[in-house]
């Protein structure tokens, strides 16, 4: 079981959390203006990174809030967790050698 560092509550066991999928997937502002391709991209296409992955978690059985995390999917180690609206910590990304996640 993973130990996850909620930015609001601190380190808690995975069972308190719900996984929210890839982070920073923005819903198109005007869906009616989207092409089928853009809409399918938003709905279904994901990075599925082997390596550093930016993802959402929700501390359902704690503060109830969503937050973001960087996790290495080759070893399940968390590199950082950060609040919604914040950018991924540059230091963690640098350590991992990954590109910037907006």
């Amino acid at each position, binding site marked *: 079981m993973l130990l996850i560092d909620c930015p609001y509550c601190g380190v808690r066991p995975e069972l308190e959390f719900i*996984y929210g*999928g890839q982070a920073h997937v923005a819903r198109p502002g005007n869906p009616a203006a989207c092409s089928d391709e853009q809409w399918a991209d938003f709905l279904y296409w994901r990075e599925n990174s*082997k390596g550093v*992955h930016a993802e959402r978690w929700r501390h359902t059985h704690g503060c109830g809030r969503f937050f973001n995390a960087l*996790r290495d*999917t080759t070893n399940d180690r968390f590199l950082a967790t950060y609040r919604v609206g914040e950018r991924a910590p540059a230091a963690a990304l640098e350590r991992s050698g990954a590109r910037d996640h907006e």
Partner: protein
Amino acid sequence: MLVTLRGARHDLAPTHRPVPTDQTMQRFSGFSLLRRGLSGHRDWQPQWRKAEPKAAYDAIIVGGGGHGLGAAYYLAKEHNLRNVAVLEKGWIGGGNTGRNTTIIRSNYLRDESAALYDHALKMWEGLSQELNYNVMFSQRGVLMLAHTVHDVQVFKRHVHANRANGVDNEWLTADEARAVCPLLQTDDIRYPVLGAAFQRRGGTARHDAVAWGYARAADALGVDIIENCEVTGIRRDANGEAQAVETSRGVIESRKIGVSAAGNTSVVLRMAGVRLPLESYPLQALVSEPVKPIFPCVVMSNTIHAYISQSDKGELVIGAGTDAYTSYTQRGGLHVSSHALEAICELFPMFRRMRMLRNWGGIVDVSPDRSPIIARTPVPGLYVNCGWGTGGFKATPGSAHLFAWTIARDRPHPINAPFTIERFREGRLIDEAAAAAVAH
């Protein structure tokens, strides 16, 4: 007799000594077993050659699991492409082919899925004869338990849809389900069993034998099976067409490249600039210590999440769930396995004192509609067979057969024509979430 068996088992294990390519495949039969038993089992030939990569092939399959090896076999046998290689980064059958719970069934809801999975089930029925290799296919029946009113309605709908599609499936009351599987506890549990859907043609097969049987048969047709050969890049020519693969053992040219890499499909396809609607999750399974034959069929419960059968070796083979998060680690949280065991102990109280021998994870590539993709990609000459998610083993022969067809003819067979990448853009999803929600 004991000596004979021990000798046979030793020699049936895959060996890697090279043999001349022109040597015809040594056929297995009761007679050949007896004859070699009398001579101490010293003259069995290796089941496939340890091939060195050539500079170029007519077709390359990336991924040496059952689906990939089978595709190479059908390319050689049915499409007369003999200059074919299977590239496997580890050892063949060491990925999800060796990690699943070996359940085979075809009781899927949609017309497209019923055609696809029943195509595979029909091929399973003749596979041991076809390959001259005992894949131990056992049609012991698959019982899917209903615990809620919703389950009952969904399963009855499945039963009707299956029968309309010519796929056997029947509704059993709780008493009838207990008659099929006397160990089953239907009452006095948190979610009593209200009934079950039962597919009698479903069952199990020996997973390793599927990989080895296809490898041996493909090798006999001239296919090169190259292990410890990891694909690190895909080269495209000036027109953007697939041209070659870069591997840990050098560059290998081919104008037809088929990728059958399960959880790593996204990684391999990205090398050619192709993105896919897939996410990779760890799926866990575990086995108990071996016991005498005690469990007559396969039992699955989607609602309390457990599935179980008994291998011919005597182990209870138990399927757990996927972890919540995407990962490539081939392991998972222990709480996921424990959860499945709690459900097993509830349904089968007599197993409460069984000890589990080992547990493991495999990385499954899950598509948004829980149906596979067997299709051409936007890159000409590059083909993909993926998205089998938590339930690809059951489809192995059918999947391999259709993938070979698609690669050889550069167009899909009518059965896999709906299973494209474009369906997610066109809104033609083949929603099997109800049939495939982790339980396989």
